[in-house]
């Protein structure tokens, strides 16, 4: 059994839809609204907060905005949490308290302006 660093690089995502990667898979970018990827079998025990870490480089002059949602077990599955607004370097949202626990496949779904992602951080909220 392996316990990982709670910062998960985007290269570990799978079931990717409407997203592209750079050559060494250290960055993923959204191609079209509705884009999503999966992080497989994540234990949510004790996890209170999710942070989306944006990749640097070419970003638009006026701050773009959009919605990022996290769903359990399917892109349209149970909504675990949501970020909405202008993109910043790190965008965090809380997991709806008491909504879910245990091991789940997590789907992150992107709507709004295109965005470039480097990693996802799982936090205990303290």
């Amino acid at each position: 059994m392996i316990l990982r660093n709670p910062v998960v690089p985007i290269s570990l995502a799978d079931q990717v839809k409407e997203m592209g990667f750079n050559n060494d898979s250290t960055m993923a970018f959204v191609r079209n609204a509705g884009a999503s990827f999966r992080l497989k079998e994540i234990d949510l025990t004790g996890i209170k907060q999710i942070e989306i870490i944006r990749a640097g480089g070419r970003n638009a002059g006026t701050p773009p905005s959009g919605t990022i949602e996290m769903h359990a077990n399917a892109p349209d599955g149970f909504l675990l949490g949501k970020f909405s607004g202008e993109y910043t370097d790190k965008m965090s949202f809380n997991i709806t308290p008491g909504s879910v626990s245990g091991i789940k496949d997590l789907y992150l779904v992107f709507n709004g302006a295109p965005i470039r992602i480097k990693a996802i951080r799982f936090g205990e909220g303290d």
Partner: protein
Amino acid sequence: MIKSGLFVSALFGFFTNAEISLAQTPKKPESNRFTKVVLAQRLEEPMQFQVLKDGRVLYAERKGKLKVYDPKSQAMETVAEFAVSTKYVNKAGEVTEGEDGMQGVILDPDYDQNHWIYIYYSLAGDEAKNVLVRYEWHGKELLESSRKVILEVPVQREECCHVGGGMLFDKDKNLYLTTGDNTFSRASDGFAPLDERPGESPRDSQKSSPNTNDLRGKILRIHPENDGSYTIPKGNLFPPGTPQTKPEIYTMGNRNPWRPTIDSKTGWLYWGEVGPDGSRDDLEKRGPQSYDEFNRAKGPGFYGWPYFVANNKAYVKYDFATKVSGAPFDPAHPVNNSPNSTGLKELPAAQPAFIWYSKAQSQEFPLMESGGNSAVGGPVFRKDDFKNAARLFPGYYEGKWFITDWVRGWINVVEMEENGDYKSMERFLPDLKLKGPIDMKFGPDGDLYVLEYGNGYFKDNPEAELIRIEYNSGNRKPSVEASASKTAGALPLQVTLSSKGTKDFDEDDALQYEWVIRKNNAVFKTLKEADPSITFTTPGTYQATLTVTDKAGEKNTKSVEIKAGNEPPVVEFKVTKGNATFYFPGKSIDYEVRVSDKEDGSLANKKILPSQISVSTNYLSEGFNLTRIAQKQMSVDASAQYATAISLINNGDCKACHAIKEMVLGPSFTAVSAKYKGDPTAVTSLSKKILNGGSGVWGDAFMPAHPTMAESDVKGIVRYIMSLSDAPKPAKTLPVKGPIPPPFRKAIQKAASYSAPPTRTTAQKQHPRNLRRPM
């Protein structure tokens, strides 16, 4: 088939120039003209091989056995067993398994006349050294009286890794031997190990690779003489007599140079070289991320380690005591100022790597892929090297270098310009995935042989095989796959055998299938179906061999092993408090191991004792490292296996005659252990004595026979007895239940295993990325 036909005719139709170039350059042969033939399966840590003229294959196993495979009888025989050192003992007295052991074997160029073979291995005993020895061998056992020690490489056995051990002869009968840097690779954050603090020389590669006065971290070049000595050939890096240098050195600045080869036409030396573990650049403070290399030397030279890697990317001078970084090293003027070096300070200018690739996707060499890596090497094909070969690779491959990687399992073919510059690379047999290739070369019959170690380190991997790839210009042999629905289980065991995946590329071939099931080499059953079912009602290990024959009578076979009468144990590792995906700094985790075994009971019903379970955790700051886990789990496994042996002793009749320390009727276990200490045959011979009985060694008392005991149990008891005279005890296993306290910081890995000979299961979930051997 149809596609490529259309493509070629299109070229002929529209481009006359293409026609000319096609006539000059041989066309790439179809992949299905190559057949993989499995020669021997279930090898035990094979390292390096040699193919004899009659097709026999002599090979070395890391744990000390030299074996020969005879394709006529399809039998494998042990030629000799050497007492080898495989362990390291650190300052705290902890024992870990290392890469040491028997590394390789090579035939003398005049073997037909003088019958000499050379073996490179880690000598067991107090004196830490690897030795190159020569023996006379006529096909059966080694002639013990012919032993000559040719060369000794002194090493340290405090912290593991990098032994090298690749060997080859050039046309002038000079012997090349690769040696590793003998340096701990995991205390330098994935960058160069340059720890100059007093007492830390095992963590300072500057003592070896860039030390002009040390034989480690090199490719040595010597000319063995008839009397067992050697002379220094012309053209090495330092002329004999140069102060503070070793004249044997051909290349220096090597980390773990693995399998060397020489292009017989140009005389240039090529080899694979394993790099460190880091996967990120810190160019300002430490240096580049890690790169593995495929190298080429047109002459002697300094190949950079530990100051440069890849195409001379420079590491940064770093003080391990103060953690202060200095300037990057200068490839034009490298200087070795380490107090651990005994050689010259001013070194030759560094040579860049020929091909280099990191864990990330390579921009320069995209076919190398990404992920964990471990460069091996491979042969350069030259038609003229083969006289009267039965089959020969086509001219398309003339002068090209076949390379492979232990983790990635592909074979790439590298093409060079006339002047030796890199030209291009292509995949060889895209569907072929090798399972831990560790040595690859052409045999005298023109076939490409590959020794597959398997992908678990320090383990007798069930997938370890000797294979060869044959090129066939006429009728093609069937390509055979064999599998079983179950390979172990309780009686009665019903198994469906499957030939799924078997195919033949000659379209009109009708195939005949035959399964022969053997137990103890005697035929148990023969079945003439492609996918038959069979029920085993008596316990034992069965070998099911599928032979497929085509219309022309060409055959190919593959085997699968089935163990009836022993269901593998089920091992579960559960986190009972804390998150089971992530590790958070400073938090403790509670865990529980659950084990159940159909035959032996479970932890819950107390038939399996907690002391029989080995549990270990590792904190891995540099990413997932399979070897690190294997090293630690192996040492705690030993203590669990001893616990099983102790319970067998307590429940059997042993104590009627023996005690640990005192003589009873028979000798004490400690005395037995002391008497046979260092004897590599002790486990086998003492096990025989327990099973069959004996007397005379320790006075008149008779040792009764124990014919009902399982051989694997008896061997476990003997291993425990033998351990009594080894001073350092194996590392202690963690309990089967409890908290893992901090102070781990980034990520930890856990492994639990339960030993129930002869089947063993390791409960270990592994992430596929960053799989890594620290060679």
